[in-house]
């Protein structure tokens, strides 16, 4: 009978005895075997990448005058992704002429408000094609889909959206001054954030009323060419945006073209210096966004687990192909052992592999050349007497992959401490006093970005003020936003991109 059914007095039974626990409670955090992830590849079926891309000049895809093409490789598979035109002086000249014509005939005749509306359109169309752009970025450059999907592409749209709104508000940007555009801007961007760097360059240039000739990097030209399709589809007047592809020589043609009014370059300090030198004696304006060797300073009172996450993000984000990467960890002595142990544990959990897999933390090294360079530095580090530690993860046989790496027992003068490696390689030094930390932080020719980790606000402001760099991330790292200016001190560059300050290089004041 139902009413006589025995009721199990659960509470009585457990009273005084051990409480029930999770069925997994006896399992230890065995990172090697327990946290197996099934693969979760992003489908790339719907992404169309033609076998061959031409330049985008004067609103049309245009084959190169000399008829030469280069290949873009998927660094995760070493397969050819597509071919693209190699720009020569003839192509660059055509592009500059188109940009000049557009500047004089259409773009400058347009009201600022209408100009802004075109830029808003570009932002929206990037959003509309976001999945396709993210997958393309990952196929072409090897970065994890999670990053291209969540960082590169949405931020690219955000930069266009932000600067679109500036177009008809420039009178408020520079107190006491009238604003005029510069003219034709030559822009050369790197391979680490192809679409994002394009947006950092093109959005403010167009907003201020300039026209552009942009050259993407030779290992990652595809998203720039997809952006060219967006310009065409958005009905942007012909010649306002011109994309010329090619390698360093093509870039040099843009820099040295007499009818270019301003050069914007993002890339290595080495090339930046060559560009600055070749602009000597001309009246061309220029901005340079160059290399870095970001110090990441951790004080004893830092929240340690949060800091470990921050360190990982600072150096392993985008395979360490980040000019502002926190590649030099400076840890206060008292916590260095504990911190390094925790860091090693956390490194063990990083998944290195297929960039299209949504679980992947670290994708492919962008190119063979960069892969060789990183390995060279690993060798240099070991030869300099530093202790190298790498995570034990498996890496795919094909493609260019590098295990997350840290070096301890390094000194300030070591090449791996002084020189930019641009890979997932972190050096670790210790310090005793805040002054020593700042001294070490500033002791390189670079000054792009740095991190400060502590629970004490006054320490953040003290160290943050003394670190000579354009960005200070306190209790965070590698954050970007269109409203936030970015750029270097010292040999890390000249000028700022992003925010109100990012307009300045694209205007002349009177």
């Amino acid at each position, binding site marked *: 009978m139902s009413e006589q059914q025995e009721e199990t007095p659960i509470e009585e039974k457990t009273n005084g005895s051990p409480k029930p626990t999770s069925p997994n409670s006896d399992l230890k955090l065995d990172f090697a075997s327990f946290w197996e992830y099934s693969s979760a590849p992003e489908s790339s079926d719907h992404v169309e990448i033609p076998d061959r891309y031409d330049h985008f000049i004067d609103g049309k895809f245009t084959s190169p005058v000399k008829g030469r093409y280069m290949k873009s490789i998927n660094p995760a598979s070493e397969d050819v992704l597509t071919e693209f035109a190699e720009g020569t002086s003839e192509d660059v000249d055509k592009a500059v002429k188109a940009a000049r014509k557009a500047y004089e005939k259409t773009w400058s005749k347009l009201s600022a408000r209408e100009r802004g509306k075109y830029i808003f359109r570009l932002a929206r169309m990037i959003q509309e094609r976001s999945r396709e752009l993210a997958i393309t970025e990952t196929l072409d450059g090897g970065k994890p889909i999670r990053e291209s999907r969540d960082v590169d592409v949405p931020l690219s749209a*955000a930069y266009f959206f932000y600067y679109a709104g500036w177009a008809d508000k420039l009178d408020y940007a*520079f*107190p*006491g*001054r009238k604003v005029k555009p510069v003219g034709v801007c030559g822009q050369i961007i790197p391979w680490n954030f192809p679409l994002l760097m394009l947006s950092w360059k093109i959005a403010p240039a167009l907003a201020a009323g300039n026209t552009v000739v942009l050259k993407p990097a030779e290992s990652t030209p595809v998203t720039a060419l997809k952006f060219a399709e967006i310009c065409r589809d958005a009905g942007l007047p012909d010649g306002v945006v011109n994309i010329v592809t090619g390698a360093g020589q093509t870039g040099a043609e843009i820099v040295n073209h007499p009818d270019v009014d301003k050069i914007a370059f993002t890339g290595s*300090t080495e090339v*930046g*210096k*060559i560009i*600055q*030198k070749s*602009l*000597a*004696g001309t009246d061309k304006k220029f901005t*340079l966004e*160059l290399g870095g060797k970001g110090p990441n300073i951790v004080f004893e009172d830092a929240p340690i687990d949060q800091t470990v996450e921050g360190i990982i993000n600072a150096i392993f984000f985008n395979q360490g192909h980040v000019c502002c990467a926190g590649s030099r960890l400076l840890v206060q002595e008292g916590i260095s052992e504990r911190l390094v142990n925790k860091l090693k544990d956390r490194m063990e959990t990083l998944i290195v592999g297929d960039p299209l897999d949504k679980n992947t933390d670290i994708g492919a090294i962008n190119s063979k050349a960069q892969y060789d360079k990183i390995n060279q530095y690993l060798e240099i580090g070991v030869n300099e007497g530093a202790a190298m530690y790498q995570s034990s993860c498996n890496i795919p046989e094909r493609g260019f992959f590098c295990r997350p790496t840290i070096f301890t027992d390094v000194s300030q003068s070591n090449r791996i401490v002084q020189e930019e490696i641009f890979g997932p390689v972190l050096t670790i030094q210790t310090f005793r006093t805040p002054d020593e930390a700042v001294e070490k932080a500033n002791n390189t*020719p670079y000054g792009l970005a740095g991190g400060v980790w502590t629970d004490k606000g006054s320490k*953040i402001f003290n160290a*943050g*003020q003394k670190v*000579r*760099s*354009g*960005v*200070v*991330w*306190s*209790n*965070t790292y590698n*954050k970007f*936003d269109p*409203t*936030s*200016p*970015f*750029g270097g*001190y*010292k*040999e*890390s*560059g*000249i000028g*700022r991109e992003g*925010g*109100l*300050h990012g307009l300045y290089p694209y205007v002349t*004041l009177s």
Partner: protein
Amino acid sequence: MPKRIEVLKTYKTYVGGKFPRSESDRTYQVKDSKGSHIANACRCSRKDVRDAVLAARSAFGGWSGRSAYNRGQVLYRIAEMLEGRKDQFVGELEQFGVKSKDAAAEVETSVDRLIYYAGWTDKISQIFGTINPVASSHFNFSTPEPTGVVGIAAPHTSPLLSVVSLIAPVIAGGNTCIVLSGETYPLPAVSFGEVLHASDVPGGVVNILTGFKDEMLDHLSSHMDVNAVFNTLTDKSTRKLIDENASISVKRVFHYSTDDWLDQSHENPYIIDEFLEIKTTWHPIGD
């Protein structure tokens, strides 16, 4: 009554808060507009440039670390000291052949220009700094900081006013500097060093050298510990030399020239801004 024999001044340089002669012991003749000898000026060498850069670098931490309010007061003090020595500078300019009226205008404008820039020190962050409304949960702000050590190449014209117009915006922003004064008549620049010395300006913040640009500019603009060059020389080959040298260490170069240093357009915060770096700081908002 026998006519009193005038005591002539030995013009030296101003480096690190002291008044050394050139290490080279060389001098050159400074003449007035009619070609008569007025004084001997130090013909500084590249080693003097090196010493001056060292002094400027050493002074940078202290000067850039001063509060903006304090820097403003120091600049104001320079103006006060210059006002008190007006006659000396008018005399010095007259000696060179400048008409009394023009000399007085130059000195008075120099004083006023110092006061103009004195007032900017604690406002520049409010004009050129921003709080940035980032989309993520962070507090984010950008403030200007001084670029560092600035090399200044002064023109021949308006030998006091030009030097004042070049130094004031540079040090108002918290930089330190090395000035290569105009070759033909460097004496007011050297005397201005004495004014700086009497004005609570820490030694090394402003360093003033005299001599030939050909012997110093190459070294100054290629020096690895100089962060920026403020140049008023107009000839193309000099500009190209500076630009090329600057590329060795990614120096900022600001070419600036004018025929009329009395013009008020030389008083504006965008000149200060040429020698500022924007630093952006992020901090999470949350627990």
